């Protein structure tokens, strides 16, 4: 910390330093955990790096994992800015996947691809947004705690998915496995890098990041949610409609999470099943926080945590290191990150009082 005492504006440098230190410490704590299991952590991390970043293909898999994180975190940033704790991206993602899959499964495979995909994108966003509007309404009009409501809706969404997959949406040819019939070609998002699974979803993510950035920085809506997040009393005093803003922000957040779900089924899995990795909804929370709610910075952290996830997925098989290590590392990063924010505040205040009072004389 001493290095930073000299700088004029510590807040910006700490904004880089703290996440960096958090990541390093998170990885070290992960290493201890691996060591305790009797595995050499250096080898694990080596394999993880190779698995995530070594070749064009492995890096493309990192991008594949980063895509939903970019989409979801961009949306979460909008609601987190206004201090609304949407923990429900998990459920909104599932709903997006379900809504868009409906058309892939039940509509004709002969509909032109552009139309089919447009309908699926819209359906995914609508599905996510609808699931997000429920807690937004409950919070805006009845003050129901959104952490609890969004979380419960995650479980409910998961059981809706299970209900469909064990029910009418199951492919009769799946030998009893809870899988839908494979999506026809017209319902598959086109790949943008040959011989990889990187698809149009990544472009959606990049667009989303810039749209959110623009919304927050340039529009009245961005200004209002900043004021609401920092001081809801002042917002009401200025005549802002807090309820309306909560609902709009949650529609954006839910729609982007739903779009991520659509991208996953239409761009990667090509069918609907129970395992569609909704945990991205939780990981995206970490992404948003590491980036201090800046959507552009968040997309880089999405690539980092996406790499961690895709690397860990591979070593799970090759090195017998369970996937839970990702949770241990991620939570360690988070603990260090939020625990360190005190230094940011402390330094910030300290810097203002630059006057030095020295040379007091002792009497008595």
């Amino acid at each position, binding site marked *: 910390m001493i290095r930073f005492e000299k700088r004029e504006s510590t807040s910006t440098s700490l904004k880089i330093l703290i996440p960096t230190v958090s990541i390093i410490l998170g990885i070290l704590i992960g290493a201890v955990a691996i060591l305790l299991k009797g595995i050499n952590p250096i080898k694990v991390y080596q394999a993880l790096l190779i698995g995530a970043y070594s070749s064009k293909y492995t890096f493309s898999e990192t991008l594949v994992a980063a895509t939903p994180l970019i989409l979801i975190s961009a949306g979460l940033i909008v609601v987190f800015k206004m201090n609304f704790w949407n923990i429900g991206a998990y459920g909104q993602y599932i709903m997006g996947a379900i809504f868009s899959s409906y058309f892939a499964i039940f509509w004709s495979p002969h509909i032109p691809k552009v139309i089919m995909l447009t309908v699926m994108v819209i359906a995914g966003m609508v599905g996510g947004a609808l699931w997000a509007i429920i807690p937004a309404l409950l919070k805006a009009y009845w003050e129901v705690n959104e952490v609890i409501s969004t979380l*419960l809706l995650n479980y409910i969404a998961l059981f809706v998915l299970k209900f469909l997959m064990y029910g009418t949406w199951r492919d009769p040819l799946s030998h009893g496995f809870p899988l839908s019939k494979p999506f026809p070609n017209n319902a598959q998002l086109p790949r943008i890098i040959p011989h990889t699974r990187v698809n149009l979803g990544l472009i959606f993510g990049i667009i989303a990041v810039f749209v959110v950035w623009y919304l927050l920085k340039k529009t009245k809506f961005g200004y209002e949610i900043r004021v609401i997040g920092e001081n809801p009393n002042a917002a009401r005093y200025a005549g802002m409609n807090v309820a309306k803003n909560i609902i709009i922000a949650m529609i954006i957040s839910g729609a982007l999470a739903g779009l991520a779900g659509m991208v996953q089924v239409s761009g990667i899995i090509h069918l609907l099943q129970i395992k569609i990795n909704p945990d991205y909804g939780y990981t995206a929370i970490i992404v948003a926080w590491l980036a201090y709610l800046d959507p552009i910075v968040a997309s880089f952290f999405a690539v980092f945590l996406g790499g961690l996830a895709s690397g860990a997925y591979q070593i799970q098989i090759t090195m017998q290191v*369970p996937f839970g290590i990702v949770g*241990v590392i991620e939570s360690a990063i988070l603990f260090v990150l*939020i625990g360190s924010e005190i230094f940011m505040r402390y330094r910030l205040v300290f810097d203002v009082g630059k006057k030095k009072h020295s040379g007091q004389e002792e009497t008595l």
Partner: protein
Amino acid sequence: MSGAHHIVLIVLFSAAVQSGTTLLYPTIGEIFAERSGILNLGVEGMMIMGAFFGFVVTYITRNPYIGFLAGVLAGGAAALIHAFVSITLRGNQVVSGLALTIFGLGFTNFYGQRWINLRSPVTVSQMSVPLLSKIPYIGPIFFKQDALVYTSYIVAIVMWFILYKTKVGVHLRATGQNARAADAMGVNVYATRYWWTFFGGLLAGAGGAYLTIAYAPFWLDGMTAGRGWIAIALVIFAMWDPLNAMVGAYLFGGIDALQLQLQAVGVTIPSSLLNMLPYLLTLIVIIIATLIVRVKHISAPKELGIPYNREEK
């Protein structure tokens, strides 16, 4: 025939109490953490830690009580991370709690692989309470249970008493309501919050341990399955009162037992819908409870989630 119905109901309600016990412990724990002003959303993470260590230690020592104790301590240890981050470092309590949940689920997945699907060799034995177990209906439901269930009754009653009738309770309530005033009067705000956050973790661990030791004596990855979140919802339902927590816990235990019973009987409702029931009902109940709390002008402890710093105005 009516006799058979009677037995079915008693079995159902008795199972409801056991399922409710997995919720009662963590709900009471969270009530006390929140009463001190600390919001700990990591209940799910602490429960799964309790469940895991409770199971493993029971498996190794073949003594469910030692296992239970291990689970309790594991939950407490996990809570200390949250306490450190949110009390000493004044970090964001919502995020810290989420991190704790991610940690618990990740940790138990990472170390739990070799225990998956193993069954516990021992379990806690049922013991009837003399006299009380003879009461019609009430007796067989509440007083033909195991020692860990009885402990939960005692915890609920004793904690209610401590909350309202003792010096410790006054200090606790003051700390969550007005930390500055409590501090000015000589209450150690930091110590109070540390202790009750830790206590919350102990009880969350107890709830998890009861799950793997008595209610479902085996280990599955992520087997708490959202019970921690239901417990957090029950805190609002209980309006931060340990005795109300009993009502809430058994109500949800009842729904859980009912859906399992219906599945066992082979009712034609798809199991995914039955599984959904507790979460859906929690959502509905939390909405109603929130409305009631508002009408009655009861509110959460005023400084819930707000870090305290003596020198900050």
